[in-house]
């Protein structure tokens, strides 16, 4: 049996490593062949970009060689897929090679598309790429006071990031002694200050205590970079000196180019994690169209289900588990405190008070990630 994993981010790497161990005998006996195709030979710990934006991590700390993260019985190629020929059970890569499969796992992730909002590229800073995070850090370091506005595009990866950014920004400006000279305004797309009701209930008074102005129902329509004004679809506008954007995201271009899903999001069965209409194609992580957070955490829990089910199909001819929508997100809360949100399709998050031990656990997890992505944790 040929199992092909397309994508070397969190979801794809955990699927591949988990399968490599579950099917080690079958791979050794050449009954199973496990192959990964990725666009890069490096693997980035993306949550670390938030720390880079505040000078708390350097970019080199965010990377590992992808091959070093993979079990040795995984065949790995840096050769991104350009064509998915699902009816023929094969893919074609950038190099022109064709890979046949019996089971395909698509874990191609998502990408930022700030260019879809007029003026956003010219007028706003972000921290969703290495270069952008460094640029933002330099801007913050040069900042001497004024109006900072944060706006949030839809959809976006890591829905907790806007709240975490504000907590970190408040602490950073206080450390530099310019918090009193800075007005911070937080804008959010829906009618409360975070989409998770419990997070909104907890964070709103925290923001008020820190003197953060909040405007809800603000979806970014355009940025006038010359006059430093950001306008909303809802008809309001904010003047800024420094604009920070959580950029809108789309699925990868290759998904759209192969007409596999509007916006690059692949229609996926919420329990089986198979692509709609293709029982031999699994989808994990940001690439799905599921109504769960686009985070490494969701990708991780989905990947465990997919790997266990594929291994079960090989061993007993049937999958054994459903994905229950599980997500676990750390929430950095400033002052060296953190909390977390855990939920699934049927159980809403029950937020605990922020604490220092949870912050230190998050700091430890920044290193433990490399164990997690190997499928060991």
């Amino acid at each position: 049996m040929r199992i092909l994993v397309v994508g070397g981010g969190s979801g794809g790497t955990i699927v591949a490593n988990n399968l490599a161990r579950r099917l080690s005998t079958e791979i050794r006996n050449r009954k199973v062949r496990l192959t990964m195709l990725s666009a890069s030979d490096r693997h980035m710990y993306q949550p670390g970009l938030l720390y880079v934006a505040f000078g708390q991590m350097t970019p080199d700390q965010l990377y590992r060689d992808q091959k070093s993260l993979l079990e040795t019985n995984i065949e790995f190629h840096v050769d991104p897929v350009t064509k998915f020929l699902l009816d023929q059970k094969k893919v074609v890569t950038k190099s022109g090679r064709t890979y046949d499969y019996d089971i395909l796992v698509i874990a191609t992730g998502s990408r930022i598309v700030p260019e879809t909002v007029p003026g956003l590229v010219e007028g706003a800073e972000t921290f969703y790429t290495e270069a952008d995070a460094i640029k933002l850090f330099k801007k913050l370091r040069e900042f001497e006071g004024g109006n900072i506005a944060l706006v949030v595009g839809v959809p976006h990866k890591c829905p907790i990031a806007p709240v975490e950014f504000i907590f970190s920004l408040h602490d950073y400006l206080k450390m530099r002694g310019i918090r009193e000279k800075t007005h911070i305004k937080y804008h959010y797309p829906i009618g409360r200050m975070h989409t998770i009701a419990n997070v909104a209930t907890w964070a709103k008074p925290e923001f008020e205590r820190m003197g953060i102005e909040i405007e809800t129902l603000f979806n970014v329509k355009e940025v006038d970079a010359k006059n430093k004004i950001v306008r909303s679809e809802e008809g309001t506008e904010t003047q800024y000196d420094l604009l920070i954007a959580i950029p809108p995201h789309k699925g990868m271009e290759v998904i759209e180019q192969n007409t596999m899903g509007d916006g690059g999001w692949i229609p996926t069965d919420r329990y089986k994690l198979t692509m709609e209409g293709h029982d031999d194609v699994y989808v994990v992580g940001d690439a799905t169209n599921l109504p769960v957070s686009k985070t490494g955490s969701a990708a991780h829990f989905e990947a465990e289900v997919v790997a266990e089910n594929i291994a079960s199909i090989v061993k007993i001819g049937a999958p054994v588990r459903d994905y229950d929508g599980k997500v676990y997100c750390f929430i950095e809360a400033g002052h060296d405190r953190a909390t977390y949100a855990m939920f699934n399709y049927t159980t809403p998050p029950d937020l605990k008070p922020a604490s220092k031990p949870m912050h230190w656990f998050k700091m430890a997890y920044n290193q433990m990630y490399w164990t997690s992505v190997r499928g060991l944790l």
Partner: protein
Amino acid sequence: MSTNKVIDARGSFCPGPLMELITYMKQANVGDTLELLSSDEGSAADVPEWVAKVGHEMLGSENIDGTWHLRIRKAK
């Protein structure tokens, strides 16, 4: 030509039904109808609030066996 799309946001706590609607509204064409399925009681209020503020058209909302069916036409 206008199209109809169903967005199944049942069981979504994050990003949540309204964020899902906004995502697909951005992809839709003017005149398209979107039907949002939500198990969140709050959707009955917060979806019409956003639709009215942005200027789209609320076509209807009803609760069928615990699921809200909210129908919206993209107007701009």
